[in-house]
């Protein structure tokens, strides 16, 4: 691809954001040390260093004069004085290859120097000062990037004549936008950072700020990009020489390839040697760039994960007794000793939910309450077997209508989801597929799960939209997700969840992302639907107001475990666990008007 695409692929452009924080200076030394531990990078570096040394000392190392043609010894096989044989004009191929290295590397370096000089200067100026220079240079970068490099190089060769140095300089200009964009993006990201403001306020000159604060941020990405760019330049140069568009007087790898290709039937090895050298050099440069990016990305990502989860403390669960005479429906879901873990990079499993047990009965709302990170959402995902990547159930049973969901096959789970178990997410906008209309997202499961025809499914979807209180179902049906409000989107999601009349509904903080007035409406809607459809509901929340409003039973979660569970009235009346008590204290601070036991029938949300 190097010879083919005009510019490095954006996918291979290193991520600048990773480096935007922290001390880059010390990281660079450790980057080199870490590269030494990466076998691929070591092999690549050894090859490149060898190549550079051989090229620089080519006149000493090469076994003979590369330009000396011996008309008697043409097309000799490898051996003796000619370790790689001779070409059609009797040149010593090894000598040519070694001398070619000098010119090929020098040409590639010329490209790099010009590209970096133009790209970095332009990117710094455009990004830091903005204004007309920004507009013009960005536009120019776009134009230069638009045309395929080789076509421009052909035109440049026609206009300027055959010079390898000129061609490589032009190529340097052509690829400079890669550096321009890299630096530009980094500078615009950093320019308004507080520490740059602080530097400005403290009286540092613009050039000092650029040098000290901005160049350090883009240094590593530039080195990575440079490594990739050298590979591309070597490939392009070889391509031009191969086409016969370079200096015919200079020994270059591409020229060798051209001579070899002319004899491909008689002496295929002549094509092989330069191909090998060019190919290995391009691969080495790309692998090295890639290894550097990998190391930088890892160092950027690793510290975030540390310390995110506290140790799970095992203590007995405080269980409140059932109220006498309470009406309890059939048991829908029986979760016993559920444990959820995430596979870690080092092979261990991090447990985020531990020994969670609770049950849900038909017609009842079971609240799971706790602060973020307490494992309540993880438990909900585990029941649906929709845990994020790397997560899985590592213990316990989830009995639903007699079958254990924890050990069920994926196919059986797919049949159950939507039809028997449904889910209402927390954040309405991100839970609708932005590329499809609201209507099509409602119709798809209806057709798949209930086998309705398109017309029936549409009629049912419109009914559902009306049922969840959407004023103009036809219009919402045709709308794309970004065209409806958050409250409407949440109603759409509720409509989707109940569309196949499930037995168990899992609602994950269904009101957290909504306005206070809309929260109350959505809670009322959920209560009505619960009564009407006689479902069991698991309501995940961090809000005791919502629990008081809607739930029959509640389990309090902390650090991946349930600490207290029982009927809502009982827990509100006499919380026993310290953590539950502290949660109540927190509400009282926030809203002193609310008593310990509000009337559940009233719709007054917090």
């Amino acid at each position: 691809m190097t010879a083919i695409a005009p510019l490095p692929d954006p996918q291979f452009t290193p991520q600048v954001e990773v480096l935007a924080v922290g001390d880059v200076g010390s990281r660079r030394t450790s980057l080199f040390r870490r590269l030494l531990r990466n076998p691929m990078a070591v092999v690549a570096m050894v090859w490149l260093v060898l190549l550079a040394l051989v090229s620089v000392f080519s006149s000493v190392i090469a076994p003979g004069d590369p330009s000396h043609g011996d008309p008697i010894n043409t097309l000799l096989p490898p051996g003796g004085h000619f370790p790689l044989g001779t070409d059609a004009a009797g040149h010593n191929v090894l000598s040519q290859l070694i001398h070619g290295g000098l010119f090929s590397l020098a040409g590639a370096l010329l490209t790099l120097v010009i590209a970096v000089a133009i790209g970095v200067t332009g990117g710094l100026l455009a990004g830091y000062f903005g204004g007309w220079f920004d507009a013009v240079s960005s536009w120019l970068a776009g134009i230069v990037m638009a045309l395929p490099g080789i076509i421009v190089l052909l035109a440049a060769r026609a206009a300027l004549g055959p010079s390898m140095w000129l061609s490589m300089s032009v190529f340097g200009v052509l690829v400079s936008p890669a550096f321009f964009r890299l630096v530009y993006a980094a500078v615009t990201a950093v320019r308004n950072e507080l520490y740059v403001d602080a530097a400005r306020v403290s009286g540092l000159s613009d050039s000092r700020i650029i040098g000290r604060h901005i160049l350090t941020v883009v240094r590593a990405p530039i080195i990575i990009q440079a490594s990739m760019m050298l590979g591309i330049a070597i490939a392009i140069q070889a391509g031009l020489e191969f086409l016969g568009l370079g200096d015919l007087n200079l020994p270059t790898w591409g020229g060798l390839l051209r001579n070899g290709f002319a004899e491909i039937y008689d002496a295929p090895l002549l094509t092989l040697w330069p191909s090998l050298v060019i190919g290995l050099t391009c691969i080495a440069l790309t692998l090295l760039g890639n290894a550097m990016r990998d190391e930088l990305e890892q160092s950027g990502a690793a510290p975030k994960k540390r310390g995110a989860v506290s140790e799970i403390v095992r203590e007995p669960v405080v269980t409140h007794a059932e109220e006498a005479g309470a009406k309890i429906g059939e048991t829908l879901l029986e979760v016993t000793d559920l444990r959820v873990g995430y596979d870690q990079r080092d092979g261990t499993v991090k447990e985020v939910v531990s020994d969670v047990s609770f049950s849900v009965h038909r017609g009842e709302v079971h609240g799971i309450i706790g602060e973020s990170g307490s494992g309540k959402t993880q438990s909900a995902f585990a029941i649906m077997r929709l845990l994020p990547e790397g997560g899985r159930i590592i213990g316990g049973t989830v009995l639903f209508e007699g079958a254990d969901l924890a050990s069920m096959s994926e196919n059986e789970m797919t049949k159950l989801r939507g039809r028997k178990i449904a889910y209402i997410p927390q954040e309405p906008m991100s839970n609708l597929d932005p590329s499809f209309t609201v209507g099509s997202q409602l119709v798809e499961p209806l057709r798949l799960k209930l086998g309705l025809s398109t017309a029936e499914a549409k009629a049912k979807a419109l009914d559902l939209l009306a049922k969840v209180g959407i004023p103009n179902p036809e219009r919402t049906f045709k709308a794309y997700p970004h065209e409806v409000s958050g409250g409407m989107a949440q109603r759409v999601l509720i409509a989707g969840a109940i569309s196949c009349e499930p037995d168990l509904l899992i609602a994950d903080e269904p009101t957290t992302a909504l306005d206070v007035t809309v929260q109350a409406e959505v809670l009322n809607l959920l209560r009505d639907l619960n009564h009407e459809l006689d479902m069991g509901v698991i309501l995940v929340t961090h809000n005791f107001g919502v629990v008081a409003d809607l739930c029959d039973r509640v389990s309090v979660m902390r650090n991946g475990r349930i600490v207290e569970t029982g009927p809502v009235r009982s827990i509100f009346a006499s919380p026993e666990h310290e953590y539950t008590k502290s949660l109540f204290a927190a509400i009282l601070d926030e809203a002193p008007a609310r008593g310990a036991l509000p009337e559940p029938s009233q719709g007054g949300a917090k």
Partner: protein
Amino acid sequence: MVTFIVRRIGAGIVMLVVISTIAFLMLYAGGGDIARHILGQQATQDQVIAKAHDLGLDQPVFSQYAQWLGNALHGNLGQSWFNGQDVTAAMASRFPVTFSIVMGATLLSALLAVVLGVWAASRRGVVDKVVQVVSLLGFAIPGFLVALALVLVLAINLKLFKPTGYTPLTDDPGAWLSSITLPVIALAIGGIASVTQQVRGSVIDALRQDYVRTLRSRGLSRSRVIFKHVLRNAGGPALAVLAVQFIGMFGGAVIIEQIFAIPGLGQVGVSATTQGDIPLVMGLVLVTAALVVVVNLLIDLLQGWLNPKVRLS
């Protein structure tokens, strides 16, 4: 939407004019030397002056450009300085050849990239590692080396394909397919590598989106969600990379055509460049620029179809 298209077409025309102006000024600034170059060292000074006058090279370069532009707008790109060939006709006869191998390589890239990218992104683990290493190698190895290897192994040693030559589709579809197979593969390697990386990345991103879980919670199977919803959302960035690759392959075809002796635009370009046949080079630049403009417009329209938010703005 209409104003969006009109604006994009306008921007494309501006780009064409800018590129053609820069290229013309660069290529035609040579002046009198060009006539000398065409006629050779034996020609007298009078002959050189007469030739320069014939070609209009004695006029100021801007008035030459105005004349060229006027003709170009009527579809006349001038004649070759060396064999009198009509440039427009030369471009028109060579374009389909190059286009067929570039298009073939693009389709192959898109197809394989979706398969490999989705496979790597949804399986992760070993499959993902292998796909990543292989695509990194495909990205690193220059396409013309792949072409040389294919010629050497599949054509010369195993004799599975003819090493060189091109059969037009209208002559013999089977022979056409056989004649473009190796060039298409050689051209596609880099494209496959880059687009696979992009598809893999965007599918992984899309799989982490909340709506994927919600769609799965409605009972849609994982594969249905991936192929209908995830791919649609991952399509935009992948399409942008594919467009860059398409343009890049158009340039890469210059070398590939030389290796397989395919009579496409690249071959004209290389021989015209070596000779200094400026009108043909100018024609090639213009055709390429026009292709870039058209491809970018098509991609914009496709993006609008994929992403309803783009469609509205």
